[in-house]
């Protein structure tokens, strides 16, 4: 079992799924009937990346709760790594979203709910790192970061809800292909990309957590030798 979920195995699996998804998206799934046309294909990456980012933040949320119940550094490491990956994926969401926007509607930016929410999410989790940076003492840092990771994750759906339903009816919510039902072939391509992206996240989390643990152990040794 350990072998199956080790980082290299996960990366391999992720790679397989993602490449398959890519092939399916371009060769198998039909070109979108609406005005977006070919550019719609970026959706097969844009949406999975978005959902994976949220999964990452969810992992951070759970790890944070676990840390508060039992202050084991491994939970803090998991939380920290997940937030970092989530932030990385969030930036990718923004970039792919903007590319899609430009290609489909000739606009680099639109204040539409998903893009706006991810923008705020980027700021939110960047604040997480600023917080970690200014707390000097380590156990406090982990505790405060955990509290923030919990509060931040709760705020994500609330923010999405607010951006979608609140503003003064100015910007109509852009219906993406994902909202209306998907045709069979599109659905398959989408699910495979989704699986691939999730496996990628799992692989990255594993690799990063291992690297973080190694770094902590090295730091420990350094202090022991030094003082």
């Amino acid at each position, binding site marked *: 079992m350990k072998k199956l979920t080790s980082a290299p195995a996960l990366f391999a699996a992720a790679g397989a799924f993602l490449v398959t998804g890519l092939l399916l998206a371009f060769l198998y799934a039909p070109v979108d009937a609406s005005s977006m046309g070919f550019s719609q294909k970026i959706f097969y990456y844009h949406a999975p990346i978005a959902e994976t980012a949220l999964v990452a933040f969810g992992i951070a949320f759970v790890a944070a709760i676990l840390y508060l119940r039992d202050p084991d550094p491994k939970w803090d490491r998991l939380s920290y790594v997940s937030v970092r990956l989530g932030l990385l994926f969030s930036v990718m969401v923004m970039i792919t979203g903007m590319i899609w926007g430009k290609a489909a509607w000739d606009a680099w930016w639109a204040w539409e709910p998903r893009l706006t929410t991810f923008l705020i999410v980027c700021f939110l989790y960047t604040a997480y790192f600023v917080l970690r940076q200014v707390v*000097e*003492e*380590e*156990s406090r840092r982990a505790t405060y970061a955990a509290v923030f990771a919990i509060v931040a994750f709760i705020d994500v759906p609330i923010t999405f809800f607010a951006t979608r339903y609140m503003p003064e009816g100015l910007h109509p919510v852009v219906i993406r292909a994902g909202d209306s039902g998907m045709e069979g072939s599109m659905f398959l391509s989408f699910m495979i990309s989704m699986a691939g992206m999730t496996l990628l996240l799992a692989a990255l989390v594993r690799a990063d957590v291992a690297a973080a643990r190694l770094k902590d152990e090295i*730091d*420990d040794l350094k*202090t022991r030798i030094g*003082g």
Partner: protein
Amino acid sequence: MDASGRDLSDAPLEIEVDGLRKTFGRREVLRGLSFSLERGGFLVMFGPNGAGKTTTLRVLATLLTAGRGSVRVAGHDVREDPMPVRRAVGLISHSPMLYLDLTAYENLRFYADMYGLEDREERITELLERLELSHRRYDVVRTFSKGMRQRLAIARAILHRPRVLLLDEPHSGLDPRAVDILDGLLAEIREEHTFVMVTHHIEKGLELATRLMIVDGGKIVWEHGAGVARETFNAVYREHVQEGSVL
């Protein structure tokens, strides 16, 4: 036996510390401290700065969580059951923990309410008198001299009649009159109270203690009962404390 000759051997244990460890980040400040103190005892901790004495007091006061090891004060575990410990403990430390923009009365009233004192008004009046601050009752603490602030801090610390008093260098910063008041107070409540004092004031420490301790590098390096002469102590200190610290 304590300094006045009372036999304390049957008294119940008021403080029990076993294998106390505390790390701040990567720095291990307390490395397995173990000691106990019976009710009515007076423990004095000496040691160079940074030895972990203040940290120990703060753990006893529940201001810091113990890293590892068990700590029991007044019959309760500080980690599982901190509330009763807080009710039983009073702390006098470097800073007076007083609100500068409130009057002496308002400060004491605040703490009296926080501790749920039944006889709030009488107790406040009594303590202000005892500490010779009655005439400044309605003055804002910002206008107090350092000595007066420390005196008010003493009132704050014993307001709720704690069984255990933790004193972190209580004589520092006090004018001679305040020192007398404090010493008088300590003598008055000596019976039925347990004390842990950190100090650099050797004479006072040796005089008041029923138990002596030198802490260095997060560990107890020397322990003894009462009745140690000054010269003996100096020698012991030099022997056990490596760093060139000031006595």
